[in-house]
C-alpha cells in the first residue's frame, strides 16, 4: 500500500484526489477503491512524508500535475461549501442572516485623521479666508486661460478646444515658446482667474497644471486615459453654451477638499439647469475621473445620460502654495512615491 509517491502517480490519473501533506495510507486506499468504478486500474496510494509540499518536487511536469490536481480539489471544496451555504440560506428563508459585505480596498481604507467633518468650524474659517473665498462669496467669476506646452500636436490641440467648450468663459491660446512666469503677470493684469496648462509628451497629453491666478495654489496632475469626443462611443451631440452643473465625489480629506474647491472654482457659480449638462469629478483611490454628461429625467426615478465631451483621469502630483514656480515655490503637498505609496490601503485625497 505504501509506495513511493513520486513513481506511482506518473500515470496521471486525475480522478485520484490527493493532498500532498499528511495523508494516511488508509484514506488513499479507500479512494482507490472508489476509483475502480472508472474501469481503469487504480494506481496504488502514495504516502507522502509529513511536511512535504508540492513545490519540493524537482520534476517540472510532475510538479505541475500535482499542483493542478490540488487546485481542482480546492475548487471542488470551495464549490461544495458555497452550495451548502446556499442551501442553508434557502432553508432558513426570511430568517437567514444578512449576507456578509465583501472586503474591498475602498472598504479597508486606513483611517485618515485628516477627513473633514462637515461641521468643523476651523476648516470653515480656513476656507472663508483662503484664496477661493472670493469665488465662493460670488465676488469674482471665473475666466480661464487654457494653453499647452510648446509646439503641441493634434491630440493636445483638439483636447484644448474641447475643454474650452466644456468650461464656460475659457480662452485657448497657443504657447509659442513663452515662459509661464512671464505669462502669469500678464494674465493677472487681464483679469484671468485660472490658468490651465496641458503638458504633452510624445504627441499625447500627459500632464495638467491648474493654477489659480491672483497668487492662488497651483496643482500639478498626471493626466492619463484621455479620450477625445470622436473616440467616445454612443455619445450625444456637442455640448451647448449652457453653464453645466458640477459633481464632486469623494473628496473627503483636507487635501481633497482643497483640490475639490479648485475644481469648483473653474466653473461659474450659477448652473443653468435648462442645459441639463453636468461635469463630474469623481475621486476614487486618489485618481480623479473627469466626465461630462447630458442627463434627462425620464420619470421620477429613472435618468438617462449621454456622455459628451472629453474624458480623462488625473492624479495629483503636487500642490504648491503660490502661482507656478516649481523651483523656488513652497509646496503644500508633494507626492513622494517611496514614502507615501507603501500601503495599498492608504489614500491621500
Amino acid at each position, binding site marked *: 500500500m505504501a509506495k513511493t509517491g513520486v513513481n506511482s502517480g506518473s500515470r496521471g490519473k486525475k480522478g485520484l484526489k490527493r493532498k500532498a501533506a499528511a495523508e494516511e495510507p488508509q484514506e488513499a486506499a479507500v479512494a482507490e477503491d472508489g476509483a475502480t468504478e472508472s474501469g481503469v486500474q487504480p494506481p496504488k496510494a502514495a504516502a507522502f512524508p509529513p511536511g512535504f509540499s508540492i513545490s519540493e518536487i524537482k520534476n517540472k511536469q510532475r510538479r505541475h500535475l500535482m499542483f493542478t490536481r490540488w487546485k481542482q480539489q480546492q475548487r471542488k471544496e470551495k464549490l461544495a461549501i458555497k452550495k451548502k451555504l446556499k442551501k442553508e440560506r434557502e432553508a432558513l428563508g426570511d430568517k437567514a442572516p444578512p449576507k456578509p459585505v465583501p472586503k474591498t480596498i475602498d472598504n479597508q481604507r486606513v483611517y485618515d*485623521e*485628516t477627513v473633514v467633518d462637515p461641521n*468643523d468650524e*476651523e*476648516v470653515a474659517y*480656513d476656507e472663508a*479666508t*483662503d*484664496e477661493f*473665498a*472670493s469665488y465662493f462669496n460670488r465676488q469674482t467669476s471665473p475666466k480661464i486661460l487654457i494653453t499647452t506646452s510648446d509646439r503641441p500636436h493634434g491630440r493636445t490641440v483638439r483636447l484644448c478646444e474641447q475643454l474650452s467648450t466644456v468650461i464656460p468663459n475659457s480662452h485657448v491660446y497657443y504657447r509659442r515658446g513663452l515662459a509661464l512666469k512671464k505669462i502669469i503677470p500678464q494674465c493677472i493684469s487681464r483679469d484671468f482667474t485660472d490658468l490651465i496648462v496641458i503638458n504633452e509628451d510624445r504627441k499625447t497629453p500627459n500632464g495638467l497644471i491648474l493654477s489659480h491666478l*491672483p*497668487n492662488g495654489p497651483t496643482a500639478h496632475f498626471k493626466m492619463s486615459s484621455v479620450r477625445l469626443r470622436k473616440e467616445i462611443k454612443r455619445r450625444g451631440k456637442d455640448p451647448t453654451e449652457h453653464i453645466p452643473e458640477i459633481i464632486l465625489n469623494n473628496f473627503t480629506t*483636507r487635501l481633497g477638499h482643497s483640490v475639490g474647491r479648485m475644481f469648483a472654482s473653474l466653473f461659474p457659480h450659477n448652473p443653468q439647469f435648462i442645459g441639463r449638462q453636468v461635469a463630474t469629478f469623481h475621486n476614487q483611490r486618489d485618481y480623479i475621473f473627469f466626465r461630462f454628461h447630458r442627463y434627462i429625467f425620464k420619470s421620477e426615478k429613472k435618468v438617462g445620460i449621454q456622455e459628451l465631451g472629453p474624458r480623462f483621469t488625473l492624479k495629483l502630483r503636487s500642490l504648491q*502654495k503660490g502661482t507656478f514656480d516649481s*523651483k*523656488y*515655490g*513652497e*509646496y*503644500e*503637498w*508633494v*507626492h*513622494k512615491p517611496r*514614502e*507615501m505609496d507603501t500601503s495599498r490601503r492608504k489614500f491621500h485625497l
Partner: protein
Amino acid sequence: MRQDPAHPHLIATGGKENALKVWDLQGSEEPVFRAKNVRNDWLDLRVPIWDQDIQFLPESQKLVTCTGYHQVRVYDPASPQRRPVLEATYGEYPLTAMTLTPGANSVIVGNTHGQLAEIDLRQGRLLGCLKGLAGSVRGLQCHPSKPLLASCGLDRVLRVHRIRNPRGLEHKVYLKSQLNCLLLSGRDNWEDEPQEPQEPKKAPLEDTETDELWASLEAAAKRKLPDLERTQGALQTRRRKKQRPGSTSP
C-alpha cells in the same frame, strides 16, 4: 532676524539680496559684522544671496545661515575673512528652516519639498535625512538636551522626530491649519502667562518674505515639553489663532 541667546544685545539680520549683518543694539549705527558674498562661480557670474534662516552657534561667535539657493554657510566674525568659512549644499529646493542639534556640531535644515536633513558643520557633509513631511517645512526646533526635533509645515501636521539611535518619527498630530512656526516651551502653565511676554519670542521666527503670506495662514502651534502624550482635543484648546484685523486674502 535672530537674537543671540548668549548675548541679548547682538542681533543678526539677513534676507533676499540682503547679506548677513550682525548688529549691536548698544553699540554704533554700523553693523558689527557685515558678511561678504562668495566669489563668482565657475561661469564668472555673481552668486545671488537669499538668507532664509540664521542661527548663532553656542560657545563661539560663529553664525550659520541657510539660503534659498540650497546652501548652508558658516560665518566667523572673529576671523579676518568676511566670506563664509564653510559652505555646504543640500537638495535642489530652497531651505526654509534651520535648527541646531543639542551638543553635536550639526544643524538640521528643511526645504520647501518637505525634506529634512542633518548637516555636519565640521566637515560640511550630510549626516542623514528625516522623512515624513509632505509640505514645505516652516518651523523646526530641537530640544536643548534630548535628541528630539519638532517640525511643522504647510501640510498641517506637527511631527516630533528622534534624531539619533534610531532616526525616525516619534509622534505626529494633525492640526487643521497650515502651520507657520513653533516654539518649545519649558514652562508648565504657559496658558496662564500673560500674552505680551510671549509675543516677542515669536517675532524673531518671522522672515521678511513670508509677511505677505500671513493673511492666509493661521496660527502658531505651541508645543509643551516634556509631556509627549497629547490628545488632539487638548492641543486644539491650546492653539491660539492670530486675529488679523481687516485681513483679506491677497
